């Protein structure tokens, strides 16, 4: 038996110039036309576009702000912080028209917004997890922090230093609150749940911004900074 095997490899790029098999276009057409009617509705406009990165991103700030505002509205109470897990942000938003379908691509999961009352100690555990998730940093609203030596430091909640004995009202997706994305520290803590899909909340938030003459844009605000 030879000691060396020879293999040949190639990665084919499926570019927009690639030839297509028209039978597949015909196969997709009936599904696609139904989708177009429900998903093609334009609900907003982005001047700059929104994109994802760590520790902080424009699309992340947009989503976390939407979650906090919508949580406060639907639960009719003040929310201290809102989080979106980094891996749960599934697309960017290009500049130009924003459709319902684009929100489905951004948030395809049927995740619900839930509130939990977290002690400052548990909130700190969550922030330390966030500091090391992938390359560190999640979309969040209501909190600023630094990441140093893979730990969350200089944490401010509503501009005040985090107090480990305080109780904070925190919005997360039910996925994260149930311990998903390795957030075991949240599992088992009572949840307030009004059956609000995060995706529906995003659509409502975008429509609200648009109705108020605002574009769908966001800035980097140093909510999370790396200091190593």
């Amino acid at each position, binding site marked *: 038996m*030879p000691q*060396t095997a020879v293999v*040949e490899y190639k990665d084919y790029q*499926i570019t927009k110039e690639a030839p297509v098999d028209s039978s597949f276009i015909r196969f*997709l057409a009936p599904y696609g036309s*139904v989708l177009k009617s*429900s998903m093609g509705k334009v609900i907003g406009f982005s001047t700059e576009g929104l994109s994802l990165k760590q520790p902080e991103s424009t699309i992340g700030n947009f989503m976390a702000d939407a979650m906090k505002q919508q949580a406060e509205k639907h639960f009719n109470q003040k929310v201290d912080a809102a989080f979106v897990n980094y891996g749960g942000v599934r697309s960017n938003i290009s500049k130009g028209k924003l459709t319902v379908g684009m929100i489905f691509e951004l948030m395809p999961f049927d995740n619900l917004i839930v509130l939990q009352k977290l002690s400052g100690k548990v909130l700190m555990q969550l922030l330390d997890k966030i500091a090391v998730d992938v390359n560190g940093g999640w979309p969040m609203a209501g909190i600023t922090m630094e990441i140093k030596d893979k730990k969350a430091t200089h944490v401010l909640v509503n501009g005040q230093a985090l107090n480990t004995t305080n109780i904070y009202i925190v919005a997360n997706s039910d996925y994260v609150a149930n311990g998903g994305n390795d957030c075991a520290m949240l599992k088992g803590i009572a949840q307030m749940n009004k059956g609000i899909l995060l995706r529906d909340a995003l659509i409502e938030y975008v429509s609200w911004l648009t109705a108020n003459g605002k574009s769908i844009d966001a800035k980097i605000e140093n909510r999370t900074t790396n200091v190593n």
Partner: protein
Amino acid sequence: MANQLMQKLKTELPMSINRRKFINQTAIAGAALLASTLVTKEAHAEAANNRLTILHTNDVHSRLEPFPMDGGRNQGMGGVAARAALIASIRKETEHVLLLDAGDIFQGTPYFNMYQGEPEMKAMTMMGYDAATMGNHDFDGGIENFATQLQHASFPILICNYDFSNTPLENKTAPYKIFQKGKIKIGILGLGIELEGLVPQNLYGKTIYQDPILAANKTADILKKQGCDLIICLSHLGDKYDDGKISDEILAKETENIDLILGGHTHRFFEIPRKYTNKKQNEVLVNQVGWAGIQLGRIDYDFSLYSAGKRVASKSILIRNK
């Protein structure tokens, strides 16, 4: 025109992909010229029966249509119509093809929210997929939904480390499957990722996750004993992690009889298949082709160097550009 095209490619693709594409195309043209002049018909037939072409995707995530033309980085890329045409053209030039997917078929475009995976399964069946494994997002419609959508799939779902007893998927998947292509016998197994902490428990139900290395070694041993010349693992574990979590890298090093791992989950576009040395000091290849059907991976094995009944397992593997 060519200039415009290059310019466009340069703006849309990382430089390294461009350059490799150019080199690949040049190499193919040269090889085709040589082949047509030197090889006789009989030798051609013999060579064809000793040659296996493996095509693979992972993490297609319901990307049935190309990315929309919205100015984004991936605009116009992917889509089943273009992938199907490419696969058909490869099938015309080479006889023995295996078409495989490493999971996360579902979730990511409104097609899945609306149709729960039916068009994805139908399109893969139309393209002639030979096997796939399950990714974590294939549970997103619930385990019952995945079981329901299997009615539209004519290819098997291979997974050897999920125990589906007392779930809707009981007896609907297989740990492995053996394929005969020309003179080559190929064993394929599948591996899934730890579900707890990743997938909501109500979606995966009573599925029990088992140690991937134990399951892979046990299953690959069965395939070896059945005389497989090549053993392929479809894996949704992810290529590698900083925190030592089980990955394709660890799998490759800790197994004995797997020759090729086709991975997914981490959406990584490999420049070239990675090589690792396994427990038996043989080399193992790992490959992954990003996500969304932007790429189709191809790995060709030539078995003409081996006499019948000999496995491909080798101390070293030389990887050439096709």
